[in-house]
């Protein structure tokens, strides 16, 4: 019997505590810098090394490259770069292997759409997704280096 009253006391005490919920759609949820959100892709930096597509556990990255239009430069430039967010699990492996940080994570996470087709994002879309880009991308780099752990 005493235990019941103790429990009632706990719940009553909690009534006065501050609320812990977020007013989410009205106010954005604060996320830490390392948050793994939708990728931002920078075509300029991409060297078409294919590593992101290879490392992707769900094979959601599609990419092709072409010869650099400038004949004096070696290497290739990216032509098509798509991510299928129907199956992307935002595991961060693609940004981890990218040697040039052409693909980086952002803190955006709102992907809900009314159509599955909308989840197929192309290079342009990924490039325009340039808000809240993650600052710290490779913690395996020595501290202090660009993009390395702080």
């Amino acid at each position, binding site marked *: *019997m*005493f*235990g*019941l009253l*103790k*429990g009632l*006391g*706990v*719940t009553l005490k*909690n009534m006065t505590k501050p609320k*812990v919920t977020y007013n989410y759609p009205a106010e954005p949820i604060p*996320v*830490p*810098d*390392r*948050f*793994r959100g939708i990728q931002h892709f920078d075509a300029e930096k991409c060297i078409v090394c294919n590593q992101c597509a290879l*490392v*992707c*556990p769900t094979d959601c990255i599609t990419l092709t490259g072409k010869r650099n239009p400038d004949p004096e430069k070696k290497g290739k430039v990216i032509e098509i770069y798509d991510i299928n967010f129907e199956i992307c*699990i*935002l*595991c*961060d*492996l693609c940004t*981890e292997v990218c040697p040039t940080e052409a693909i980086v*994570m952002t803190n955006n996470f709102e992907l809900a759409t009314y159509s599955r087709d909308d989840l197929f994002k192309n290079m342009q879309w990924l490039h325009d997704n340039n808000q809240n880009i*993650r600052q710290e991308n490779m*913690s*395996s780099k020595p501290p202090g280096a660009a993009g390395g*752990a*702080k």
Partner: protein
Amino acid sequence: MLRTEEMLLNMGPQHPSTHGVLRLVIKIDGEIIREVDPVVGYLHRGTEKLAEDLTYTQIIPYTDRLDYVSAMTNNYAVVHATEKLMGLEVPERAEYLRMITMELNRVASHLVWVGTYLLDLGAMSPFLYCFQDRETILNLFNELCGARLTYNYMRVGGVKWDAPEGWLQKVEEFVLYMQKELATYHDLISGNDIFLQRTRGIGIYTKEQALSYALSGSNLRVTGVPWDLRQHQSYSLYHQFQFEIPTGETGDVLDKYHLRMQEIEESLKIVKQVLDVIKEGPIMGKVPKVLRVPEGEVYTGVESPRGELGCHIVSNGKNKPWRLKFRRPSFYNLQILPELLKGENISNLVAILGGIDIILGEVDG
């Protein structure tokens, strides 16, 4: 004499208290259960088959989705087995970070259990209180590795991220807070007569049964077997730290509750000790660029919040496992359910099923 009839009741796969997509085909006589046949597999994703086509690094995000309540331990299970087979050395700081995250994850997992269990019994507020405290842990993980549930944090040879600035302090604050907060839980739950009535004396099995069904974790310890892989098949750096293995006396669900609350305490103790000794240092060992695991076979078990989470790897020397098998503790623990439920009231069903603490993602692999 009234004519009575046995009824076949399908509980699940969509039911509020089967904790996911478990289906129980129950034969009931009134409200008394005569027979139970658990039907699993609704969440089977073929992780083991998928893993055969994935490199060792790629498997790690898949393990997050097995036991989604304590993904850190899953990460560790596969990483640990791989490291064992490769004979890798892992830097100290990485192991400490792994231990902090695994133990915090155990706390979070047990909090989910306490909350959902009380929800099964019909009390709503403890559930939300538990989730508030769990939220703190998830936020800490979010800061550390950028995700709240699917961490993908550990790598073969180390961890992906070093602790960000001030993170360890936050963990320490949380540990101190949580150690105090547990008293509130005891005030709210442990003394509640209705809760005691509901849980006392139900779901009891003997030590022999538990061993034969290969139960593990708190489900085994509750019968009085002090079996904890963290101490008895020590992995990581657990041998450096002091902690108790709580065991049960009567083996009923009430005992399991107390046991898991004590395990929270012990986990917090471990985290506290790790925080005292953790030093700066590298977080990745010397790992070849392409992980080629030497030919061989290895089975290692780690203590997940639900029991012995094992990983059996057969390698053919390539960068992908030839065969990868998870010993999923929930799958083993769930097997004993039909035995426990015979002759019980249907209201005890949720109390006993909840007590086993299963995660369907893990049961179905």
